[in-house]
């Protein structure tokens, strides 16, 4: 079967025990998390066990695929399947963020003005929240002032710096890609290291910002719809940056080990796409959450 590289031949991977281990791991995590939320402390232990199983699945499954890929048994068709898979996965992520951006949009354009008595909200305001003035973001913790008085996060401090950082990291990862395609391995590795460093810098600044919000601005997850949308959007984004940085680290280690060729490097490209996606989501956040 050494001639499996040509287009007329198909490749089908052999069976794998990783999917079922993944199901067991994630289900254990969910059961643990749910019992914990229901107030049983032991749930945390179950959650941890599930996380360990899930992580071992991720390592095992990707390890298998990387080994198979490096041994050269994947043909172009497999490569294209992976590409489609990644493209549509990123699309699903876009839609996930879309739900939260939609919530932000709805709150700002509709629900806040209605609570302030606009349009059909006249009676609601008169009977339920007399005197409430809807102003975004000043009173966006709602008529009951949930979470108490708070100050909003200024766009032109850390967030603006973070925008710069993430945009430059998009450039460095592209520079690394050029290095890979031109077979300049040093440029590839340096580009990746720079990208990861910028990513880590971004995450630490974001953490500083959260500390600042909680301790000095009294801006918390519980600060009404403003706090809800602010922390859920930036939080999920931060999680994705963290994940992307971990993925980039794996790619860096693989590059150091001599993986990838100028022609075949789907793993690198998938992570680069993911990184650009995270970048674009941040631009949306910067404009709609921080700036406007």
């Amino acid at each position, binding site marked *: 079967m050494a001639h499996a590289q040509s287009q007329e031949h198909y490749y089908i991977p052999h069976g794998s025990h990783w999917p079922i281990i993944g*199901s067991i791991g*994630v289900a254990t995590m969910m059961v643990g998390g749910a019992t914990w939320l229901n107030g049983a402390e032991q749930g945390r232990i179950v959650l941890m066990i599930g996380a360990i199983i899930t992580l071992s699945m991720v390592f095992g499954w990707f390890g298998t695929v990387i080994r198979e890929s490096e041994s050269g048994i994947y*043909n172009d068709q497999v490569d294209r399947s992976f590409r489609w898979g990644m493209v549509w996965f990123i699309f699903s992520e876009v839609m996930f963020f879309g739900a939260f951006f939609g919530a932000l949009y709805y709150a700002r354009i509709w629900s806040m003005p209605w609570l302030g008595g606009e349009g059909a909200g006249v009676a609601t305001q008169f009977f339920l929240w007399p005197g409430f003035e809807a102003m975004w973001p000043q009173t966006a913790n709602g008529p009951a002032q949930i979470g108490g008085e708070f100050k909003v996060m200024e766009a032109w401090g850390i967030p603006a710096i973070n925008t710069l950082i993430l945009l430059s990291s998009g450039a460095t990862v592209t520079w690394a890609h050029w290095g890979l395609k031109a077979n300049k391995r040093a440029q590839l590795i340096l580009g990746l290291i720079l990208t990861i460093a910028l990513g880590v810098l971004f995450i630490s600044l974001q953490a500083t910002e959260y500390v600042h919000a909680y301790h000095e601005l009294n801006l918390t997850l*519980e600060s009404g719809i403003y706090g809800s949308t602010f922390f859920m959007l930036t939080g999920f984004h931060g999680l994705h940056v963290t994940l992307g940085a971990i993925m980039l680290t794996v790619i860096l280690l693989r590059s150091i080990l001599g993986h990838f060729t100028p022609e075949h490097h789907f793993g690198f490209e998938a992570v680069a796409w993911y990184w650009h996606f995270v970048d674009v989501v941040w631009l949306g956040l910067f404009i709609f959450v921080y700036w406007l």
Partner: protein
Amino acid sequence: MSAVAHDDAHHEQHPYWIKRWLFTTNHKDIGTLYLWLSLLMFFIGGIMALIVRTELFQPGLQFVDPQFFLSMTTMHALVMIFGVIMPGFVGLANWLIPMMIGAPDMALPRMNNWSFWILPFAFAMLLSTLFMDGGAPAAGWTMYAPLVLQTGAAFPFLVFSIHFMGLSSILGAINIIATILNMRAPGMTLMKMPLFVWTWLITAYLLIAVMPVLAGAVTMLLTDKYFGTSFFNAAGGGDPVLFQHVFWFFGHPEVYILILPSFGVISSIVPTFARKPLFGYASMVYATASIAFLSFIVWSHHMFTVGMPLAGLLFFMFATMLIAVPTGVKVFNWVATMWRGSLTFETPMLFAIAFIVLFTIGGFSGLMLAIVPADFQYQDTYFVVAHFHYVLVPGSIFALMAAVYYWLPKWTGHMYNERLGKWHFWLTTIFVNLTFFPMHFVGLAGMPRRIPDYALQFTEYNMIETIGAFGFGLSQLLFVYIVVQTIRGGEKATAQVWDGARGLEWTLPSPPPYHSFTTAPEVK
């Protein structure tokens, strides 16, 4: 010699037991698993429906307490939607798409395995809520805030099981799209693909677009309940209606996820038994695509009575009515395909014809519900229940059954018992109408849904409905018997099975080899 590259050398023989079913990367095995899961959940969800119908046999409260009654309506819907119809059609997609496009298997076989093996865990989690403090979720499958936030210990399990099912659907849909876009045999251009493949391509797109939105919606519920966010809390500047918008942005495309693959099935069966090619192939493709597009801009027709600006009501009313145009094109094309065909009426064809008639009834009642002033009367009555059961039971479920009868000889290599098949068809069709048709009347007369008691004047119709429901449920045991009998033996099926059948899957022997097309067939 086989041209499928394997790193270990098994070709036509396959591994056994755990290795085969748990670790499988084979599209047929995974399709089989999906179909069996779907059948199992069909009976679980069916028992829940029968509990509901038993309580509604007479007015007054007699068998179950109201909380449990609401748990049953909620769980029945979740099980039937996520556990029966969706896995059923994914099972068909797995079995058929590689054979129809001339591929050896799906594009991402290991991910395919995971998409399936998530589901038993997700449903174990969901069904376990029946035994929890506070009972299973009872706020309706639509999970409207703030009511659903009153769910007891079941709440986080409900949310996580929906996340998990969503993950399964997204992975499955990614795989189906990658397969269709990347694994077609040379010459199989997009506009030569069988309509079943087309409808699944569009369905998979819808799945990837809206399942993450549902995940987002239930995540917001979770943080509202446990982490103090205010998405659906007006006191904090949010809005309970926001949940309905996010949910139905998922929910309306979801109903097309449940019905588009049925259109594909019917478009495969009708030409075979009319012995004519499908009338208006290209218009079918465009109609499917238009339905998918429109499905994103009609969601608020589920919320007309919740309070919305007039412009919103008008927009969503007209956009909804517009869907009748591409759907009408489809029904017209099926009828035109049968026109002057040399028709025969084997069981799959019977189910297909019943689908066309009864689904159209469901479509018309949908059109009635789309009219805002009329909807103000129908909202939350049994008329709505009648409507969506007509599109889902003699719609989606009939299409699944038609598909099983149609392709079972291909899958097993045996013909099913035609006499029993016809018995199953007639019993099912009579009982399904007995169950759901009177719901139109009691609904128009004002009987509300999701209430375990009702006014005396609705008694006779409710009794008829309950009798119909039990008849329908029992008839399905016959279906299981026929399927098992066909798997175990029976008259040998030829490769083509039906003399009017066209398409690549009928060029393979029955049953087909373990890897469908090991070398790409030539498509002219």
